């Protein structure tokens, strides 16, 4: 089962390593991990994606919740939430084919030097996979970097 876990973490030396270490020590490969500051400078948000059985992941979340640096931890998997991942890719090929691909996915061209283009796309992990496939069909993808998933709960709608 795929689990998306969101953590608010106090910015302290070693805090990130302690969280990641808890997952690693259970033998769980962290599929993706994004970390960035929140509107509060002292707090970072982590989004972790791991695959594992529900009971063990629940126990890891409980153990993580005990870490002194952790302010809040919760699993988003069963909640209404939005997931996004950023892709930047360097692709070489026919301009028109690449531009058509970018148009189709609403992706952006960031730079173009001769036959090489640097492009950007954000979307769910599946959408990023689909965009990469399309990009490979349009040109030669020389390199790419994916950010891992950032996720947040959907806005609460009050009746």
């Amino acid at each position: 089962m795929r689990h998306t876990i969101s953590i608010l973490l106090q910015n302290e030396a070693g805090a990130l390593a302690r969280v990641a270490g808890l997952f690693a020590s259970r033998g769980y490969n962290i599929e993706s991990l994004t970390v960035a500051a929140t509107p509060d400078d002292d707090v970072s948000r982590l989004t972790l994606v791991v695959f594992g059985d529900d009971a063990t992941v629940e126990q890891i979340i409980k153990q993580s919740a005990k870490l002194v640096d952790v302010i809040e931890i919760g699993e988003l998997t069963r909640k209404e939430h939005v997931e996004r991942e950023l892709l930047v890719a360097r692709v070489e090929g026919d301009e028109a084919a690449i531009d058509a691909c970018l148009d189709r996915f609403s992706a952006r061209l960031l730079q173009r030097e001769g036959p090489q283009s640097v492009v950007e796309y954000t979307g769910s992990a599946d959408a990023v996979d689909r965009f990469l496939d399309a990009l490979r069909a349009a040109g030669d993808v020389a390199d790419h970097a994916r950010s891992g998933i950032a996720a947040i709960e959907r806005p609460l709608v009050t009746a």
Partner: protein
Amino acid sequence: MTGADIVVQILADEGLDVLFGYSGGAILPVYDAVFRFNAEHPRDDGNEPLPLIVPANEQGACFMAAGYARASGRVGVALVTSGPGATNAVTPVRDSMADSIPLVVVCGQVPTGAIGTDAFQEAPVSQIMGACAKHVFLVTDASTLEATLRTAFHIARSGRPGPVVIDIPKDVQNAPLIFEGSRELPVRGYRSRLHAVESATLTDAACAAFFATLGASERPLIYAGGGIVSAGASGPLRDFAHAFGIPVVTTLMGIGGFDTTDPLALHMLGMHGAAYANYAMDDCDFVFALGARFDDRVVGVPDQFAPRARAIAQVDIDPAEIGKVKAVDWHHVGSLDQALDRLLAYGARIGFRRDLSAWHAHVAGLKRHHAMNFSRDSDSIQPCAVIEAINRITNGRAIISTGVGQHQMWAAQYFDFREPRHWLTSGSMGTMGFGLPAAIGAQFARPDLTVIDIDGDASIRMNIGELETVTTYGLPVKVVVLNNSGDGMVRQWQKLFFKGRFSASDKSLHKKDFIKAAQADGFEWAQRLDDPRAIDATIADFLAFDGPAFLEVVIDPDAGVYPMVGPGATYAQMITGDWIPSRDTPVEATGQPTGMF
């Protein structure tokens, strides 16, 4: 003040009366500040207010601080230098984490600018300790030092207690700072969770649900763990058990949390628990777990633990322990003492009564038919007889520390523990070498009590350098070594599960003369006991000696620890040995080890 002065001032403000530690370059400013503080603030009796006890190594220092904490309930403190000093502290820090012991370890670190350069005596303490401690602070901003220190003590003692490590670079120790006198770090997530747990109270509805379950039970059993000791809840536990007549089994860490001489006491359960305790767990229909975490040494096979229990209730201060191993039908996350007081008051208010006489008679029968026992007319000294003699002569009124292995289990089984904090043992980590330094720390915490380290020949070798610490400080610690020429518990497992191939566990050809070793370290009373007829007289003489004393007892090398629930076995498959009647067919020892190590 310098950063180092602030460290020492906060240690004094925390009410410490002894520190343990080993010096080195990166902690020298703090050591100098301790010296100056002691010189400037002599106590009325002329003694130092913060004596610094120097062990043989940093592992010893931290186990002394942990022994101090276990015996007193207060936070123990060790001061160590960077690099090897700090890494020597890893084992006791992990040991304290596993047993929930409040400890603060102050580590010197290389100067801020040198961190990460492979500087002399540098080690990545925050990473290493991060995986072992309740929390680690690396103080890179000197202005946060004071708040960090105070927060470290708060974290160590609050909630589920544990060890906190503070890594302080040398330049931070030397920084000129202003002492504010009150600041703490926000640690807002921790504080809000702590507040929620500590202020949690049982509603009337929750109490009603608990008593409905208890009322439906005919054979209730309390399963009490180390949380009872940590929470200072032994009084509320006694009152609760007595009010409703519920028998009590304890874990290894829960020993002393319920008076073992109480008629309701069924003593320790688990892998080497009393047969009657394990049978009672097999027979009960309701388990009330208090500050106990269903450890594998207790539960064995989770699906078959307490097989007749129709309900399990659990109280713990740690939400992660609820339902971790066994699903529970009723639970409360909060302070044990408050929860038990509340349940007791509610039960009294509704006039709760339950006739448990049939269960009491059953339990009494189990205690009678499956009583602890061993070979009492052997030609060689039986270790259980030694523990019984110590118990008889001290009337069970001593602090007992142990190493890890057979001697630890015999001490747990054959000594009476009337009060909490008289039983100091490395429960979860199972750290050999724990006993002697822990006894030293305990003797500083409780100079009014006799402190006895019951050790094994292999365990004491691990930290035998601390014998000299005992005599250096003139501590009246009594050290008993049960010598069976080997790693007895390992041999017992090899005998049962490895067809008697004693790989690396036989020490019979070793040349150490323990008596000469003790004498060389300054023990004036150091004797060997090998005559079963002299047990009582020798032990009485040993315990009566006014000062440090060392007794080596040459025990039957074939003595085993029984009962034993083999790894991966159920209580019904328990091996009770030749001297304790079993009610079931014991499991045949297999030729292969099981998955449960």
